[in-house]
């Protein structure tokens, strides 16, 4: 009988730990979402649509992992989503610069 309150307390602590989402997972998802938001521009879709699709998929996976209380997996997938979005932005930057330079070359009669 003495042990019953102890079991209740221990059980509550365990349930509490399982139910709460570690701050690192939440932070990782928030960062991925922020980067993906920046990447959601038409110019980025023009140059890096596949990378955006992968970023979306990874972010979805991360959210599912949170729902299943798989904190470490959630964090890994969120970071992968963020990297994919970063890559999409970097490819769009390079693509835009390339187009701009081609136009400048044309205006100056430079062979390409």
């Amino acid at each position: 009988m003495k042990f019953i309150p102890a079991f209740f307390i221990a059980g509550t602590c365990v349930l509490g730990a399982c139910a709460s989402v570690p701050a690192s997972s939440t932070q990782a998802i928030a960062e991925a979402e922020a980067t993906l938001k920046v990447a959601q521009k038409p110019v980025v879709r023009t140059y890096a649509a596949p990378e955006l699709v992968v970023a979306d998929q990874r972010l979805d996976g991360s959210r599912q992992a949170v729902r299943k209380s798989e904190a470490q997996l959630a964090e890994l997938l969120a970071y992968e989503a963020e990297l994919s979005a970063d890559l999409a932005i970097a490819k769009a930057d390079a693509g835009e610069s390339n187009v701009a330079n081609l136009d400048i070359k044309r205006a100056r009669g430079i062979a390409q």
Partner: protein
Amino acid sequence: MKTILKTIASSLLMLGLLASCAKPVMSERTVELRNKLTQLQNNPKLKGYAPEALREAEEAVKNVETPQESTRMTMHLDYVAHRKIEIAQAKAQAEYLEAERVALLKLPVIAGAKTTPPLQGLVAPKGEMGKGSVVTLGDLLFDTGKANLKPAANDDLNKLVQYLRSNPESKVLIQGHADSVGSEQSNVVLSQNRAGSVKAHLQGKGIEAERLMTRGEGESTPVADNNSAPGRQLNRRVEVTIVE
């Protein structure tokens, strides 16, 4: 006693089996990743560009070359390394093109040369214009660091002018934006001046001043990463929104 000893022996055997299963895991693509990175590092065209991104890629590849406890972590590090290498390549390429552009802009333009409007010139909404449509004038339509609108903008703004003429009740908000280079105050001034140039251009086409509102947003609303040259170029823009 015998039962206890049997239990202990079984447990030790299980632990031993489990321990032998948990061997450190390495990616099978370690060599491929290292080769890919080395190729990038030795690319003569891109040498010296995006050093920070290259350092991150190097670190990521080193992580892949370190055996990990779980397959999931190995897969994750493999993915990270691939992406970091690709990011470094794209950033180096963008910086190389930026440097090329600086050199090209010093060359004289051939009179009468036909050019297509650059993507970073004007981006007009597809389809019909209407309330909420946004026309974006990119950095290349202005002289570098100045508010003068280049002649190339003339043709590009025609569609907007036609819309405003056909819809005499409509009004636009002209917002100038800047990148994060320079002081916040100077960026507000430059972005306001560029918005003013667009307003002056539209007024020159007969659009009444009271229909043209301007605002200098400075560096407050970037659309791309200010840490890269192409990102900063995308941020240097004027957006004309049809508000009524």
